């Protein structure tokens, strides 16, 4: 108890170097735990985005690419599939349901997804939750649009507002489909997935805005279609989809179904199992993650070494103090425990400060990360990983404390009651 009191008072006496040391340990610990939190949060956020979908089918290409543009709104789709092909697979006996996606357009940086009522009926996320509407109704007309929760809140849209769609995917498109504005009819509940950051229109709507764009270029001046003209056309024929999600009638058929899709001769296409594709992606990222973790561990070690240096260099000016402690009856082992305890206190304060810093940064950064990257990093009470890290930091502080402690021990034995140079 006396030694603990001495350690605290001694650290407080050197408040400046103590706070610098604690601060640097806290920063390094925050980095370590923060990276871990983001990593776990990212994985969770990704795997929570889609649930109960057995296969994602799209044009042949990279499996991860298909997953990214279909589910996570990242990257660009390459090719489309024809509507007839889609219908053929949708009616396959092993297929229970499908959700078609028509991609490639955007609205002020948010992806526009052309789909149909199957999306509202079958899409599932985070353990089987269904899409729900916060207000309005699902879009069903050609120029109806339903907004993800973030789109509505960030752009300040409400029911009845008009929305123009930009050709291509990007923050600022220069080719606008502004002859044909859409009307907001519904706003989705927040899901904390990329669904919140997408704009949902009908497949017919996607077709309509591309009338005259068949060659990929905007229509010549004077040839643009208008909203009124399109509405007057009546039934619009859907010609293509970008990808579609598949729910199998029986889970045991999924692998066979996947093989069938991959071997389809009508056009080049492929099917991926979301969980497997995600795993493949994590494996690719895994090396980078390991590297990052090693770096952060080294940063923590550097922080602890800073503590070691600060304690070690303070020893010389503390020789008098040690001699006094010896004179009043402190054995060398008390000197050792004093210094080890100081080291442990610094490491523990740094570890706790770092943990607190992580929560401060997470709560401040959560909305920013969600807005910029579309990832929702959940804030949870510290789990076993965090406690393991904190324990490791305190243990490292304890072990490192023996370096100055043993030096002080030797000096104390050598000095006795006089300080010898």
């Amino acid at each position, binding site marked *: 108890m006396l030694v603990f009191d001495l350690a605290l008072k001694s650290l407080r006496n050197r408040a400046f170097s103590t706070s610098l040391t604690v601060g640097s340990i806290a920063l390094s610990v925050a980095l370590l735990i923060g990276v871990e939190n983001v990593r776990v949060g990212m994985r969770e956020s990704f795997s929570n985005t889609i649930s109960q979908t057995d296969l994602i089918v799209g044009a042949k290409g990279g499996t991860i690419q298909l997953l990214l543009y279909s589910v996570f709104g990242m990257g660009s789709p390459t090719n489309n599939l024809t509507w007839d092909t889609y219908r053929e697979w949708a009616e396959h006996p092993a297929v229970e349901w499908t959700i078609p996606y028509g991609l490639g357009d955007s609205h002020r940086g948010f992806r526009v997804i052309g789909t149909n009522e199957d999306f509202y009926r079958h899409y599932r996320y985070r353990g089987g939750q269904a899409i729900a509407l916060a207000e309005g109704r699902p879009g069903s007309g050609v120029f109806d649009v339903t907004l993800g929760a973030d789109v509505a809140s960030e752009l300040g849209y409400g029911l009845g507002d008009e929305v123009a769609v930009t050709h291509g995917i990007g923050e600022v498109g220069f080719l606008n489909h502004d002859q044909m504005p859409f009307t907001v009819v519904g706003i989705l509940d927040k899901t904390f997935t990329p669904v919140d950051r997408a704009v949902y229109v009908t497949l017919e709507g996607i077709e309509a805005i591309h009338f005259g764009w068949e060659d990929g270029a905007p229509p010549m001046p004077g040839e643009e279609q208008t909203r009124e003209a399109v509405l007057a056309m009546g039934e619009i024929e859907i010609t293509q989809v970008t990808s579609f999600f598949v729910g199998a009638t029986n889970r045991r058929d999924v692998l066979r179904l996947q093989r069938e899709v991959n071997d389809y001769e009508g056009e080049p296409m492929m099917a991926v199992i979301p969980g497997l594709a995600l795993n493949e992606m994590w494996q690719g990222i895994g090396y980078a993650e390991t590297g990052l973790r090693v770096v952060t561990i080294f940063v923590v070690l550097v922080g602890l070494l800073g503590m070691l240096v600060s304690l070690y260099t303070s020893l010389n000016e503390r020789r008098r103090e040690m001699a006094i402690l*010896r004179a009043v009856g402190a054995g060398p082992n008390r000197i050792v425990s004093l210094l080890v305890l100081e080291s442990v206190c610094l490491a523990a304060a740094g570890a706790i400060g770092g943990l607190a810093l992580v929560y401060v940064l997470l709560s401040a950064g959560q909305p920013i990360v969600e807005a910029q990257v579309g990832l929702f990093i959940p804030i949870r009470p510290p789990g076993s990983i965090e406690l393991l890290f904190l324990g490791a930091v305190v243990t490292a502080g304890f072990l490192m404390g023996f370096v100055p402690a043993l030096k002080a021990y030797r000096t104390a034995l050598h000095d*006795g009651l*006089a300080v010898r140079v």
Partner: protein
Amino acid sequence: MSLAIDIRRLRFRYGGGPWVLDIPELTLERGERAFLFGPSGSGKTTLLGVLAGVLEANEGEVTVLGEDLASLSSAQRDAFRAQHIGYVFQMFNLIPYLSVLDNIALPARMDPARRARLDGAGVKETAALLADHLQIGDLLKKPVTELSVGQQQRVAACRALIGAPELIVADEPTSSLDFDRREAFLELLFQECERAGATLVFVSHDRTLEGMFSRRISLPDVNKAVL
């Protein structure tokens, strides 16, 4: 058992260096006020280290307050020192991050036996009483860095005296004080040693004070290691 210090054929050196102490015999009665003098390098501080059990004699017997130090382990010697010896340094006596009160109370907190000898009074009360006796009662709450050298030495004396150790060892505690203050400090120290019934070993190279002591020991005369 009436001897406070009984040294026989003591020899001591640091590591493999030359002999620093070679004392065939040196004894001190309990309750004596001894003035131990000698020039720098005559082994004064080393002798005090041996008496306090911080340094271990290479040869011979050192019996302090009836306890043969050679028979004790180093941990036992630390405990013995905590319990029976009060130590005052020449200067820089105080732990800078403790208050005056905490500095005085330190030995009592370090050692239960020393605490037990406070006669039932609390550590704080005893420290305050001692501080009053040494005329620094108004300084208890001050940080030690704000004290003058003379005040620091009195705080150190209080710390040495708390819990009534039988032996007070003072290593040139007055050398950083001017003459008038030396005498005043000594008067107070004597008074408190008497009150506690403690033996005092006072080391100095300055012989102007020797008249105040009941016993004078010239270290060069008893220490054969000094040429």
